[in-house]
């Protein structure tokens, strides 16, 4: 069994905390980190014709922004510290996509940061960490 951990990043402070936590653990246990950025997207949204026509272009931009803005800087920090890692950037509904990637890589654990949003917002939109905890097939660490 591979010793690997998926860590979810999104450029937010919560994501940074998750990355710091995961890299410290990885150093101790010699685990490999799968640094993952899920760009929130649903195949069932409603768009204008113009949005559809520009979709491919926007998708590339989103991937580029996530890769160069968040994932690559994270990877270079890990490289400096000598932590084995891989990066993934993918579109999809956040919690379900994280689980999908976790299963594909056969990770033992998922590490995710907490947004700490207000009660009402949580009630309306739910939280990625909350959904993940409910549905993940592997243990989830929520970094406060």
């Amino acid at each position, binding site marked *: 069994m591979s010793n690997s951990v998926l860590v979810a990043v999104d450029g937010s402070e919560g994501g940074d905390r998750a990355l710091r936590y995961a890299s410290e653990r990885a150093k101790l246990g010699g685990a490999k980190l799968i640094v993952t950025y899920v760009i929130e997207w649903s*195949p069932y949204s*409603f768009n204008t014709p113009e949005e559809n026509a*520009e979709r491919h272009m926007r*998708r590339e931009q989103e991937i580029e922004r996530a890769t160069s803005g968040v994932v690559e800087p994270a990877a270079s920090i890990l490289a400096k510290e000598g932590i084995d890692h891989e990066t993934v950037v993918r579109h999809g509904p956040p919690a379900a996509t994280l689980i999908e990637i976790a299963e594909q890589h056969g990770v033992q654990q998922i590490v995710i940061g907490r947004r700490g949003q207000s009660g009402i917002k949580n009630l309306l939109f739910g939280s990625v960490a909350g959904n993940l905890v409910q549905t993940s097939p592997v243990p989830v660490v929520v970094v406060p």
Partner: protein
Amino acid sequence: MTRLSVLLATFFLFTFPAFAGFDETINQLTAPIASAVGSFVFFKIPVLGAQLPLVVLWLVIGAVFFTFYMGFVNIGGFKHAIELVRGDYADPDSPGEVSHFQALATAVSGTVGIGNIGGVAVAVTIGGAGATFWLIVAGFLGMSTKFVECTLGVKYRTENPDGSVSGGPMYYMKKGFEERGMGGFGKFMGTFYAIGIFIGALGIGNMFQSNQAYVQLNTVAGGALDGLGWLVGLILAAVVFAVIVGGIKSIARVTEKIVPFMAIFYCVFAIIVILMNFASIPAAIGNIFAGAFTGAGVQGGAIGALIIGFQRAVFSNEAGIGSASIAHAAVRTPEPVTEGYVSLLEPFIDTIVICTITALVIGTSQVADPNFAGDATGVAMTSAAFERQISWFPLPLAFGALLFAFSTMISWSYYGLKGWTYLFGEGQLGQTIYKLVFCAFVAIGCMVQLGPILDISDALVFLICVPNILGLYFLAPIVRREMQSYKARLASGEIKRYKD
């Protein structure tokens, strides 16, 4: 840009008194033009006592031909279309692109417009209950036409230097004919179509919509907006202006999200009204079938009912017009034919489901009370049918009509713009000029009466069916080959299903 629109709106408000009697003037100016264009496009031949417009015959023959030529794909492909929309065959390695569902939803919200509410009432008024039957038949056959045009739309689309895509009949005619060694003819047809759609966009996707939205608003307001069509028109035009020129996409985005729910809301209440008229249901259905073959009380009898049914169906679901292929062209798929499958659901949703429901609301009301609507036609008649049972419904209906009209206008402004950029290139100035003209027509639509508007809208839209369907005949063999190869690979398992 926001400031500019506010300024413009204020300007128009202050020049308000100068516009008194403006509606009347505009009406007088457009009526003769409308009837001239109408009689040219709808050149009629007498058939068994009815006047059959050649262009309607052209559409019917096309739809029947494609249905047979594609081996009744409208029936055989239905299940697969739903599987595609559900994402059963979506490649899990390329999420984030336009999904089949999104392409369908966008195209449907462009087609589900006032035609589904007001157009059906027009059909029933002129063509009798029997027109409903032919409307449904036309929707069914139209599914095949859509299949062909949307497959071609994706297959021959063009990727622009900025990474966005453009597609539609003008592109498939140009490139498709080039492939068949008829480049010159293809260019001519492409240009003809592009001119047609950018002018036609001002009718079906614009004036007719704003006109009927105004009518319904006025009905709800109890006639308080009489003679104020120009004001409603200017407000509507200002909102459209804010979206398409000002680039305030949030308005369009909100509309796109509300429209599907409005459509469901509309259907649910329509079904409630039909159920409330339950005693009249058998008679109403009987009238539809009887009227379809006897054409009792309809000018031109059964043929007359058939003509009206087909005309209104095309006007509503746009099969044969080619507009939907512009919207579907945005999908990136290695199999263009999958978009064809998905698109055949459009006439089904638009015509066979929504139009039929509207027709039944009107039909059952007519059985219960033949004079329920008085002199009202179009959307006002549909509104009266709802009001008989649910007194407060005209208000949400007005809101729904406004939204349907708005989303259809936004979609069509895009279709028209694609015609324009095909002809004149992607230059910003040209695009802005086109958009301004588009907004002006939104306002004009509210100022004139339904009759001339309908004439001119019909004429412009049916005019582009001529080059489009001609092109489809030539390119249909390509679509059939693609379809057969796709079906074979689907059966062999080469095309993978990712979800159960």
